[in-house]
């Protein structure tokens, strides 16, 4: 079939080729997007990787980032999938508004999210104060706060992806399963989730990548303490002052993770047809 492929560097089969100005602007736009990433790769101190990666600050940040982003992913799946189910399968008054609220963190500046998290779960927060008075537990400046901040910004990505996936699962499949005697849990476990798996996997990858890259809400709500709340993005920010080479290395690691996620999701984002 390869001989049927259109020749390279021509316009696609449908539509008229765009004007030259658009092509030039498009190339400039592409350069703007790609140059920083290429430059970052070039500046990464490859010869010193071994020594930098064992730097305690880098190691601690790496470990904390992995653990906290995976924890945020688990929380997002446990809470986000049911929420997506509710959004996809139930109608209730004010649903568009409720739905918009739930995915708002996707477009909210993360720092604002961090301030909101302080207002809710801080020591003087709406929930945080009664919690502290009742149990003595305070969340800010803890690794739990890192997970909460990451979940706050990342879970909406899972919710929207899974909800879109659920809408593509034929609800009549659930009817068919019900007439065959399957109860709701069995239907969810044996019919809906397997049919949903590609969307769930995509949502999990997006969610995890977002959690791993989280900065603004984390530094605002969880603070910055190496080993406890200093994740990789925070380390990049502070190491840039003290040890720029380490900052470049961590940045490159984060870039590599993002590329890996994009490749894993190639069917969703990289396919042009």
């Amino acid at each position, binding site marked *: 079939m390869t001989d049927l492929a259109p020749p390279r560097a021509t316009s696609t089969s449908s539509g008229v080729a765009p004007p030259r100005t658009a092509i030039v602007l498009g190339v400039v736009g592409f350069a703007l997007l790609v140059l920083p990433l290429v430059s970052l790769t070039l500046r990464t101190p490859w010869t010193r990787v071994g020594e930098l990666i064992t730097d305690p600050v880098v190691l601690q940040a790496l470990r904390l980032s992995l653990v906290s982003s995976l924890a945020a992913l688990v929380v997002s799946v446990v809470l986000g999938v049911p929420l997506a189910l509710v959004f996809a399968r139930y109608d209730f008054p004010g649903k568009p508004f409720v739905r918009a609220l739930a995915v708002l963190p996707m477009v909210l500046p993360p720092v604002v999210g961090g301030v909101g998290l302080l207002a809710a779960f801080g020591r003087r927060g709406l929930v945080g104060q009664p919690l502290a008075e009742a149990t003595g537990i305070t969340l800010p400046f803890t690794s739990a706060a890192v997970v909460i901040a990451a979940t706050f910004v990342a879970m909406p990505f899972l919710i929207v992806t899974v909800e879109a996936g659920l809408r593509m699962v034929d609800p009549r499949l659930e009817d*068919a399963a*019900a007439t065959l005697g399957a109860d709701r849990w069995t239907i969810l476990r044996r019919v809906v989730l397997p049919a949903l798996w590609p969307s769930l996997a995509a949502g999990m990858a997006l969610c995890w990548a977002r959690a791993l890259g989280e900065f603004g809400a984390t530094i605002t709500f969880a603070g910055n303490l190496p080993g406890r709340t200093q994740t990789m993005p925070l380390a990049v920010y502070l190491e840039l002052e003290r040890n720029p080479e380490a900052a470049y290395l961590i940045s490159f690691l984060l870039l590599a993770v993002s590329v890996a996620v994009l490749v894993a999701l190639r069917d969703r984002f990289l396919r042009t047809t």
Partner: protein
Amino acid sequence: MSEVDRDPAPRADGPRDGVTAGAGGGPRGAGDPPAAGGDGLSVDLGLRLGALELEVAIDAAPGEVVAVLGPNGAGKTTLLRAIAGLLPIERGRIAIGGRVVEDAAAGVRVTPQQRSVGVVFQQHLLFGHLSALENVAFGLRARGVPRREARGRARDWLGRVGLGGEVQTKPGALSGGQAQRVALARALATDPALLLLDEPLAALDVDTRRAVRQQLRRHLDDFAGPVLLITHEPLEAINLADRLVILEQGHVVQDAPPAVVARRPRSAWAARLVGLNHYRGRADGHELTLASGATLAVADAADRPGDVLVAIHPRAVALFPSQPEGTPRNTWRATIDALDIHDDQVRVHLDGPIPIVAQITASALAELALTEGSTLWVAVKATEIEHWPV
């Protein structure tokens, strides 16, 4: 009036009170006996869904196949979903195998899981991630049958539908006909008290449809419980069903054996379905006055004057280049409006005092040199006109 419309099923499997499923399907009177008698299906329900207002009473005896026919939007699938328990009813009750599974007044509502209803859906709706075997075993597993036993029984069922070699195949790799057979095996494997089929052949191509229909016929014969078959294909209905229920706009228009529907359809839709010319009119002796004012002479006189339905088979409509002489007492001039050519048969749509469709052979079309706009003469023998009181 019209006892023909209430013909009981031709099978004499036992006494049934299905005769109460009268045309119009209105609510029963309070004094009627409960419909749950017998081991079959007894449905008398009302519900609203969007613009649709469904008011239906249908019964089916064990072993009987009842086809529900109707145009799109008539409420066929809604009826099926209500019986399966996928949609609550607002009025009436549903009994399956002598057990009341839903009674709106009494607040009884058995879940779909507990109804013992096997359903074959329009687009097979197999579970894409499970093999054919696991699809068929699904219902057994869900009902607590141990894995090994469920697989064994599922294997048997796949063998029975002729798919013993496709045990491990995923639905995506099955042909349309195979998938629909797996869906049938899946529905039957749980040994349901009632089988519901929603346009089971609609998604198949013509050749596959023929093959699957024959197989389906065999399995329906083997099935001991009542079967409700939803379809818009008259051939499918006549071939598979013992009785036809014509559903239009949420109401039963006719409930009769296929032969009766084919000869005396009670609605224009059903007449078109069986390919008949269909009119409303008034009979007085040997003369029929149609709603348009045109008159027709008929051979058998009406018992008494009154409103009638009239049917003329297109093959009984003869066409002549000039005014014919002799026996036919009904002749008129008409203009050809359109020609539908199917294989060697041509349906000629004619405009005139009585709009009518004639069916002629392709060679006749050539001999008469007919085209759209041609003018010719139409003749219908009085003996070919079927009429019966409304």
